[in-house]
């Protein structure tokens, strides 16, 4: 299980993600700078971490999505490379066209930083296969633009195809996302994006360790 964590100017959650991957996979991920044009040979999983790439200029994730390394990520994702985007990473992979829809300003205009509850809606993915279908995990969110929107037809399709991976438990939607969507995957299932931060709910110091099973899923995938 060789993983790589992408680093763009303004990203600030890469250390948390590196630690989470290190602890669960036993291997230190490569940290790959945005101007690199190739992922390290043998990379099985690319994680795009959270933060504020390029200061959220233009649109969150827009500029990072067009950086040199993303061209290689896109080309390899088309051939099955696993990609996980978390928070700003979700915005980046969506801006890159790897996932449908868009993430826009939270409906109440507030930056939310709190714990939410997520229901596992699809436990057949590379990041949920160790969890029980329909089970609920606690996970923190920290974002100002996590309001997931997509056209009605695509929404119907991703719902019908079981591509909603994580859903905010009813009444806990922090941003107004359509259908309480917190995370989705692409058609092939090898690209997952989610607004919450599972890397921040895996050790005693985090208060809860609900998201350990998510990272353990990577080993079985």
């Amino acid at each position, binding site marked *: 299980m060789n993983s790589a964590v992408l680093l763009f100017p303004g990203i600030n959650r890469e250390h948390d993600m590196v630690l989470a991957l290190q602890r669960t996979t036993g291997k230190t991920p490569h940290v790959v700078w945005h101007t690199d044009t190739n992922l390290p040979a043998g990379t099985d999983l690319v994680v795009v971490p959270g933060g504020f790439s390029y200061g959220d200029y*233009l649109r969150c994730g827009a500029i990072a999505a067009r950086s040199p390394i993303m061209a290689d990520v896109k080309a390899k994702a088309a051939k099955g490379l696993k990609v996980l985007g978390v928070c700003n990473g979700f915005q980046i992979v969506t801006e890159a066209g790897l996932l449908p829809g868009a993430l826009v300003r939270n409906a109440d205009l507030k930056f939310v930083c709190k714990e939410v509850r997520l229901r596992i809606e699809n436990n057949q993915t590379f990041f949920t296969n160790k969890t029980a279908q329909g089970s609920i995990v606690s996970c923190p969110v920290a974002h100002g633009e996590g309001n997931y929107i997509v056209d009605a037809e695509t929404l119907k399709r991703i719902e019908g195809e079981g591509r909603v991976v994580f859903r905010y438990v009813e009444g806990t939607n922090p941003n107004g996302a359509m259908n309480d969507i917190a995370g989705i995957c692409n058609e092939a299932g090898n690209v997952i994006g989610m607004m919450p931060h599972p890397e921040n709910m895996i050790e005693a110091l985090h208060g809860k360790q609900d998201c350990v099973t998510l990272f353990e899923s990577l080993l079985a995938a």
Partner: protein
Amino acid sequence: MKAKIKVTLKNGVLDPQGKAIEHALGSMGFSGVNGVRQGKFFEVELAETDKAKAEVMLKQMCEKLIANTVIENYAIELA
């Protein structure tokens, strides 16, 4: 050559910032404001002097970066 690009949210895409502005205008005493939509405006200076070529290039810029066509429309005006 100078270009002006206007990026607006597509119809049906919620605009909470526009809504907040609308409410603020109402509370300031401006009555009859039926809606506010917020957009973006860009000025781009180009070395290109051929108008047709500039238009092609600007369209690509909008499609590839300046607008997210999932949620936004754009309009290009060449000076």
